[in-house]
């Protein structure tokens, strides 16, 4: 059936199964659309050729979207069969055989962005490998974070549709936040079971404004097309760019304002804005 064909990672490891997927013209069309949307969500500067990473690049379908956009890219995949197809298709990107759960082997700040189409959920399966999914996810996200230049994004297309996948999503986002990313989920066409698409949009090094999902004009107010996650390490400002009231940032800004007004203000220390013991 179409649904079992769509989720082959339930039945066998990626090296075996990947080659069975994705070569009907409909699947190619869907993959291409998702890749183009992922590139759009990267929010790259207009007219500038960038250096990008494609994780789980497979036969290079998504990489083609990067090339079409005038970008240069490196693709990583665990399947030699898929990479062989990519070579035969003469993709423009450079290819690496690698396991994303073992870490991204690049110098810090190498890439201007990263896309990944239908690949991240593979990391959530506990199979023959000795390391647990949370460890592999953390290894992946922490090395990815380092390999991205500050201010760039990583966009992952996912299918979190059943309760199993929702659990995975919690795991995925927890490890991504631990690794230093902020960001959230963008949902396109949330009301259409056929067209609905999920993109995990992560920011490396800056707090960004999460892009809006497509089809949001027609969506029910009760159906959210964004889920925003804040990492412990990142201080979230509200949408107007001001600090959250009463937080440490807000206190520091207020003290600075009062200094500019010429008032006497205590020096800022590590205790500034720290939560006090409750007094009864």
């Amino acid at each position, binding site marked *: 059936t179409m649904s079992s064909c769509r989720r082959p990672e339930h039945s066998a490891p990626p090296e075996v199964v990947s080659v069975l997927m994705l070569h009907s013209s409909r699947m190619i069309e869907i993959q291409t659309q998702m890749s183009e949307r992922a590139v759009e969500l990267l929010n790259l500067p207009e007219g*500038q*050729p960038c*250096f990008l990473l494609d994780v789980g690049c497979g036969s290079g379908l998504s990489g083609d979207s990067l090339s079409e956009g*005038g970008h*240069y890219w*490196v693709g*990583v995949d*665990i399947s030699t069969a898929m*990479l*062989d197809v990519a*070579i035969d298709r003469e993709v423009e990107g*450079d*290819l*690496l*055989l*690698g*396991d994303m759960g*073992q*870490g*991204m*082997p*690049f*110098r810090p*700040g*190498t890439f201007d962005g990263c896309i990944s189409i239908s690949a991240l959920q593979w990391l959530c399966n506990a199979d023959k*490998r*000795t*390391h647990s999914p949370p460890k592999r996810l953390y*290894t992946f996200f922490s*090395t990815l974070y380092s390999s991205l230049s500050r201010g760039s994004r990583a966009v992952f297309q996912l299918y979190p549709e059943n309760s199993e996948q929702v659990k995975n999503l919690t795991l995925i986002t927890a490890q991504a936040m631990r690794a230093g990313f902020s960001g959230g989920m963008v949902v396109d066409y949330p009301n259409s079971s056929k067209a609905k698409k999920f993109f995990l949009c992560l920011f490396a090094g800056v707090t960004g404004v999460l892009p809006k999902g497509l089809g949001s004009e027609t969506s029910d107010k009760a159906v959210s097309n964004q889920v925003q996650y804040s990492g412990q390490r990142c201080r979230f400002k509200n949408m107007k760019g001001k600090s959250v009231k009463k937080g440490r940032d807000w206190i520091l800004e207020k003290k600075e304002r009062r200094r500019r007004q010429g008032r006497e203000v205590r020096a800022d220390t590590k205790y500034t804005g720290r939560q006090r013991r409750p007094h009864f």
Partner: protein
Amino acid sequence: MKLLTHNMLTSHVKGVIKGYPLLIKATEVKVNEVEFNPQFVSRMIPKLEWSALVQAAEELGQRQDLPSDLVPDYETNEEFLKKVHRVLLEVEVVEGCLQCPESGREFPISRGIPNMLLNEDEV
């Protein structure tokens, strides 16, 4: 594997402190024709480890007259950018291996693709 990728690649084996730059031992190299994009080359230059690029080009016998140091005002020096473009994007290692300078561990390259898969004890 192009030399732009090689310039960014490090060993990610557990316990290795400096797995960069990977030494290239090539048995087959080819030079392709790739469209010259001066804007891209210019943007990449600050990200490069210049000495590692020169070393890699030397190892492949493809250095030609690439200078040991970066030329000042390279953004407007088209001749220089073309030399960098050739070395970064046109020279390709098809067969051979990459060797970690610290541990000696080798990563094979086959059909232009480096195999960066690690063994269980390396993770």
